[in-house]
């Protein structure tokens, strides 16, 4: 029998791979490239000084729930074993597409055959005079935490304001509250978590935040910042109310970091546009993670989905394709799992549907802060919220992903003991007895 040559396992041509960005999609790409190309050169460029850390953990670091040593999600041996050259603390400032090189902040030129842009997101900063004063910070990087922690210590901060009541803002709020700092949250919408939750679930989290002493100011925004010695002292809100504070965290959102491709022929919208192979509009240049707009399988359009699992998936797909093993990205959809005030929550897809096309199933047990909601469209789940009880939430994620018609078991969806047993026999057998699950 003729020996079959497989692309996996080192027969692909050894390439020169450069990855800009060292977070989720970057590390996922490293693994995928090495799986297919044992010999190629992999260079990772990061403008941060750390060899690796997990960005979603920064609120745990600020709240002293995780130590600095536990911040990396991959050990140093990961880079060693995968023979990755790490260029840290250097910013990629320019792409020279003719020469196929990345120009660094120290003018060094790094040549590439295949490039992955995984520059992540950057915080949206509101245009308010004084937003650059001392004591005002963004909250997406480890360096932000180091600055905030130092500021808290040096200035003996006792109260703080978080601008933005989204997931990042509330994780920051939780961390600060844990440090015995009294937090006021200023949110533009009429409730917190308005992007991912519905009114009822927002209400449950609002009540528990207020219980631990947080002040929630909704339908409002900061219009003026007053200073004292180059530091923030007071915020004046839209409705003229004012708050005395020595620390402000700005967390109104994240946008794709596309600075590097702005003046290149690579097409962008809000983020870098990619096809289902995570390739940009230019050959050999790929993008993945929070900086790109890839397929949303629920909305059937390309858009940014800035969450860890999606960045990992996209980075992995990009890595395979860069190394010559064709893999198609099936798309993802927005979802999140966040615990706030000890209440676990999961939300995914469309959570606040409008119009006749949707059917909503709900379950509420207010005294226990338990709430579940399933949103259906044409008998398929398109969204869900779980508050207080998130057990087996992934089963619903699977039903959304695979676009399963739930009409035959709809009445069981919100039952406490809902499980695979409620699924149609064929699907159940496939899941329970299937040899290996490949997702």
């Amino acid at each position, binding site marked *: 029998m003729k020996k079959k040559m497989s692309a996996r396992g080192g027969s692909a041509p050894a390439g020169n791979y450069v990855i800009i960005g060292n977070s989720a999609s970057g590390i*996922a790409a490293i693994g995928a490239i090495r799986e297919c190309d044992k010999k190629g050169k992999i260079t990772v460029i990061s403008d941060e000084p750390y060899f690796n850390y*997990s960005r*979603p*953990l920064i609120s*745990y670091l600020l709240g002293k*729930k*995780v130590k600095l040593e*536990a911040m*990396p*999600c*991959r*050990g140093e041996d990961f880079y060693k074993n995968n023979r990755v050259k790490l260029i840290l603390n250097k910013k990629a400032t320019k792409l020279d597409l003719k020469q196929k090189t990345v120009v660094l902040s120290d003018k060094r030129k790094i040549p590439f055959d295949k490039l992955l842009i995984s520059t992540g997101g950057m915080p949206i900063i509101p245009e308010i005079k004084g937003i650059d004063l001392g004591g005002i910070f963004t909250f997406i990087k480890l360096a932000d935490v180091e600055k905030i922690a130092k500021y808290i210590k040096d200035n003996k901060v006792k109260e703080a304001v978080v601008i933005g009541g989204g997931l990042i803002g509330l994780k920051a709020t939780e961390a600060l509250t844990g440090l015995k700092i009294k937090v006021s949250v200023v949110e533009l919408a009429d409730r917190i978590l308005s992007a991912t939750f519905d009114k009822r679930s927002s209400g449950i989290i609002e009540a528990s935040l207020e219980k631990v002493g947080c002040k929630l100011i909704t339908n409002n925004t900061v219009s003026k910042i007053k200073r004292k010695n180059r530091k923030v002292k007071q915020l004046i809100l839209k409705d003229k109310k004012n708050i005395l504070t020595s620390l402000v965290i700005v967390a109104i959102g994240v946008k794709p970091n596309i600075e590097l491709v702005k003046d290149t022929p690579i097409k962008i919208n809000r983020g870098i546009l990619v096809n289902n192979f995570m390739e940009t509009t230019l050959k050999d240049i790929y993008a993945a993670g929070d900086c790109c707009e890839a397929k949303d399988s629920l909305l059937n359009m390309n858009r940014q989905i800035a969450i*860890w*699992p999606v960045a*990992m*998936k996209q980075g*992995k797909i990009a890595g395979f394709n860069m190394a010559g093993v064709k893999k198609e990205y099936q798309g993802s959809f927005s*979802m*999140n*799992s*966040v*615990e706030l005030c000890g209440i*676990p929550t*999961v939300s*995914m897809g469309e959570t606040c549907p409008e119009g006749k096309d949707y059917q909503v199933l709900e379950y509420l047990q207010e005294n226990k802060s338990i709430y579940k909601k399933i949103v259906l469209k044409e008998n398929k789940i398109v969204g869900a919220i779980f508050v207080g009880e*998130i*057990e*087996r*939430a*992934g*089963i619903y*994620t*699977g039903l959304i*992903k695979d676009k399963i018609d739930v009409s035959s078991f709809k009445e069981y969806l919100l039952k406490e*003991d809902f*499980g*695979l*047993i*409620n699924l149609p026999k064929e699907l159940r*057998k496939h*899941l*329970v*007895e*299937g*040899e*290996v*699950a*490949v*997702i």
Partner: protein
Amino acid sequence: MKKIRIKEEYCMGCRLCEVHCLVQHSKTKNIIKAYKGEYPKPISRIIVEEKGYVSFALQCRHCEDAPCLEACITGSMYQDKKTGAVLCDGKKCVGCWMCIMVCPFGVISRDVEGKKIASKCDLCMGEEIPVCVKNCPNEAIVCKGES
């Protein structure tokens, strides 16, 4: 590597697998103490589902391309290189429950009595055969070795 297979037509719903799993993952490995005297209380990593005459046990499928691995923000979920088992390092886990959100089998649970961590099947590391397989009286949970 070891793969556990589920034969739902043989499952009688006796839940012995749950009992053995819990005891195996207790500190004392003593059934009475495991159920009544340990803190944090050990929990079973295998789930028995039952409805009418149908029942089956289910634990982590140790997927080759595991969604929980991708979703884990701390790197605590990892794949053992030798065995292919998907395991959770409780020391690193912070209980963000991303893995629970993405596991289509719903076989990862919250272990919240002590430090909050994700709890899942570890194929009874160190045992030759996982205890659920060994103690299933009707061979509804079987283990097939593959090299």
